[in-house]
């Protein structure tokens, strides 16, 4: 079964004085996670996303055409920063992998099962 692990992190953690070091440590965490996924034979994919300010949102009120908005779909302190799509046997295994995603400071990882017939 596939699970989407959505990474919501505070982009500002990567700004400022320590920003570079935080980024380096976080990337190292991701490298380690990907190595472990590979070593465990877990089928996965994933991407890092550009910052939220580069996002464009098409917002729908009553269906129709939708209007373009500058920015992410919700203004929060945690932005969608990337995702993994992994194959796991059940919810708990997916959560175990999700816990290995490095989050600098405040943030959240959402685990969502992928719709399968």
């Amino acid at each position, binding site marked *: 079964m596939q699970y989407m692990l959505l990474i919501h992190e505070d982009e500002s953690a990567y700004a400022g004085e320590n920003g570079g070091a935080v980024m380096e440590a976080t990337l190292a965490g991701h490298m380690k996670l990907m190595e472990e996924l590979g070593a465990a034979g877990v089928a996965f994919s994933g991407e890092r996303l550009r910052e939220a300010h580069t996002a464009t949102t098409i917002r729908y009120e009553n269906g129709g055409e939708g209007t373009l908005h500058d920015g992410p779909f919700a203004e929060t302190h945690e932005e969608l920063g990337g995702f993994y799509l992994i194959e796991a046997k*059940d*919810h*708990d295994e997916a959560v175990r992998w999700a816990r290995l995603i490095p989050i600098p400071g405040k943030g959240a990882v959402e685990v969502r099962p992928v719709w399968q017939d």
Partner: protein
Amino acid sequence: MQFRDLDLAEDAFSAACEAALREKAPIRDPAAWAFVAARRRALDALRKAAREARALSTQPEADGMGDVIAFPEPIPDDRLRLLFTCCHPALAAEARIALALRVICGVSVARIARAFLATEPAMYQRITRAKAKIRAARIPFETPPPGEWGVRVCAVLETLETALGIAYRNAAGEGETEGLAPEVERLAALLAELMPDEAEAHGLLSLVLLVRSREGARVDGKDTMVPLSQLDVTLWNARRIEAGRAALDRATALRQPGALQTLATIHLAHAMRWRRGRTDWTAVLRLYDMLLAMRPTPVVAINRAVALSRAHSPEDGLAVLDELEAARLADFLPFHAARADLLVLAGRREEARAAYEAALALAPEAAEARFLAAQLAALPD
């Protein structure tokens, strides 16, 4: 009657602290160490006293729990897996116990809804949503792996403890929540039976049995709540007290102290009034000291202040209450109710009146409201 058992909790605790000072190897967590050692001594003493008391007692021997708890279902492992699944931390906390009651105990949605003060359609939706998540997200139907065991057991215990609180949300355990307490007991007994090595599971069962031993005494003939310290002990159920004690014995034999066992010990200390005619508040206070270290919540702090007021003086209890953040507890009924009680003891009538009024303004359930109103009316001008 030489039933001095829980007095020994205090002595045992100080003896344990002394022993800690003599210990050669450094103790990593002195509070925890003293607690374990104290419990061991206290409970050893308690067991001994219980044996003696049983030998002396004219009360009929408790005849086991056979008819208190009976499980017709033949596959225990499935029920444990079910319980873990229903109480999975990935499910909304308010859905867990509802699901467990529905799935494991077969309680009707209508009855669960009444117990949780929810409408039947809302409760039906809550249960359905939880079941749908279990299915769609593939929440596993199995006992958790060793690495997650502790957290998951805690989630199950918490769920059942919450249910016990709901069962007695109204003092009588009647009305909307009627029939919930026996189901909680059933689940607690199931848990203790299926996880015999988990001390807190036995602690929970002990707590449930001891709380239920007072079932017939919690309200008077006028449906007014009777506070624990004034409950008519002749109405307590001796067999449940004995069963609760036996469960606590099994818990302590496992040497894993925990909050539920401490809480059960406190209830046992109150239950001992059944035999001794008075409450040993010093022992109760010591136990609350231990509990507060493990569970630093407002409820525990307030109950500890009440015990302190009985063991020492009302002023001491009030001083502790006043140190709690009153602003944060302004909407917390037990805070005002306890404060009113202590102010009466201290003879501070006007403040007591204000505290009772504050408590009553927070819409207590009917039996408690009647009690608080009676206390308020009984204040001399």
